[in-house]
Every structure is written in C-alpha cells, then in structure tokens.
C-alpha cells in the first residue's frame, strides 16, 4: 500500500522581458507561441490540447524524449488580458498523482520592458516531486519565453 502524503509549497519567480506586455501575454494565450516553450529544457510535448479561456480545460502529455509519461490537466480560472492569468493543473505520471498546483501569472509594464511574476502554490502528493525540482522546471520555461520573444 502506498504511504499517502501531501507537502505544500509556494514558488515565486520573476523575469524581465524585452518586449511589451501584450507580447508576453500572447506567449501564454496563443497556441503556436506557447508550444515553443511549454516544457522544461529539452523535454518534448507529445500531445497538447489548447483551450485558453476562463473555464477552458487543456491537456498536455509530455516528458523526456521517447518517454512522454507526464500529463498536465489544466483549468483556466481567471484571465485578465494582458495582466493576469490564474489556472490550476494536476500532474500525473501514467496515472499516478504527482501534484496539484494553483498558478498565478502577473504581467506588468516596466519602463519599455515587461515584468512577469509567477506564483505557484502546490500540493506535492505521495513524495512524487518536490519544490526544488519544480522550481527548476518552471525557471527553464520562463527562460525559454525570453528566448522566443
């Protein structure tokens, strides 16, 4: 029998991008733009269903090349273009629960640049992941946004 546990944590990451807020927002809102950065590092997306609107559900199957075992199931809860996106997502690996997250993206103008603040509140389930590892993944994706812009 699996020993059940839940570890709660909060990750905050900030980035400054040399692009206006509406372009940073579009990196999340537009499927073509998001597909360019929506996995950490060199991981790959095997399948992705986009539904970027309040109440929209998205599915993404992803992971290391040749082993896209992870599934993210996202629900968009609050969208205020181009300022704010709030969504929840659960992550599973071949059906095994890994985590459930509540993520807030805040986008604001900073001189000619854009400031992005990501706050992810997470419940890690049954010791399947941890805050340090998740932070590394999220940081990689935010860096990739900067490159695509």
């Amino acid at each position, binding site marked *: 029998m699996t020993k*059940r546990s*839940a570890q709660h944590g*909060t990750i905050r990451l900030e980035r400054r991008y040399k692009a206006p807020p509406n372009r940073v927002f579009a990196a999340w809102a537009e499927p073509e733009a998001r597909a360019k950065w929506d996995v950490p590092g060199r991981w790959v997306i095997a399948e992705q269903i986009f539904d970027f609107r309040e109440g929209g559900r998205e599915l993404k199957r992803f992971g290391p090349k040749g082993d896209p075992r992870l599934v993210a199931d996202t*629900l968009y*809860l*609050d969208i205020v273009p181009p*300022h704010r996106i709030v969504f*929840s997502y659960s992550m599973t690996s071949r059906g095994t629960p890994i985590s459930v997250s*509540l993520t807030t993206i805040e986008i604001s103008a900073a001189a000619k640049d854009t400031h992005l603040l990501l706050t992810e*509140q997470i419940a890690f389930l049954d010791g399947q992941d941890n805050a340090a590892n998740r932070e590394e993944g999220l940081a990689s994706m935010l860096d990739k946004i900067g490159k695509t812009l």
Partner: protein
Amino acid sequence: MSKRSTKHATFTIERSFAVPPARVFAAYTDAKAKARWFVGPDEWEKSNLKLDFRVGGRESVSGGPPGGPVHFYNALYQDIVPNERIVMTYEMHMEKTRISVSLGTTEFKPAGQGTKLVYTEQSVFLDGHDDAGAREHGTRALFDNLDTALKREAKAA
C-alpha cells in the same frame, strides 16, 4: 480601469473526530451528506448543492445573507484517494466578481478509533476582495458544522 492586485495566502486547520476516516470521508462524497454541513451561517439563503464527486467532477453551491450579495462556489476535484485524501480547486464569486481561487487539500488520518483531519488551503485573493483571515474563519465554521453533523449521525445510529 480597476486596479488589479493579488494576495497569496496559506492556512491549515486540524480537527479530531471520534468516528473513523471512512465515516468522515463519507460526509464529502454525496450531495445530501455534504449539504448537512457545507453551508453558510443559519440565516443565509441557500441554493441546492450540486456534487459530482470524482476526479474531474464539479461541485457548485451558492448562498448569501437575505437581500445581500450572492456568493457562488465552483469546485473541480483534482485528486481523490478514498478515505485518505481529497484535493480540489475552487473559485468564489460575489455576484459577478471573482474574488478568489483556492487549492484545498483534505487529509484523513486514522487516530486511535477516530480521525485526524488536516485541511490545507492555498489561495489567491483577487483585486482586494476577501482576505485570508475571513476565509479561515469561515472555513473553521464549516468544520464546526461537520463536527455537529457527525455527532448527530453517531447518536442516530
């Protein structure tokens, strides 16, 4: 243009119940059982609680003080381990305004003959609405209701 803001907060509530985890968990699993305790203050006007208790299922209920603003609760079940754990996210609206989004984890642990329940809520409050203190206070009142419902059920058995 309204000023956009967010406030993130976390609180944890622990409760002990005399009945085993399966009995406490059962109070969460169908609309009839849950409606006995998942309600606002006595004087509030209520709507029917709708509950589809499965991963990916939804829950909704609304209520509010007579003549006052109607509060809407909409939840999505994210992870369910029978008798052990429920993870859900929910949003609250006051009339047409979304005031918060939360991630709630409920853990049911055996403690002797009874249950230790641990509820952790991670929230983001939007645009200055509500606050963590009021939310925690309201949530504690719900667990008082749950305690009363479980005791009443034990007495009836």
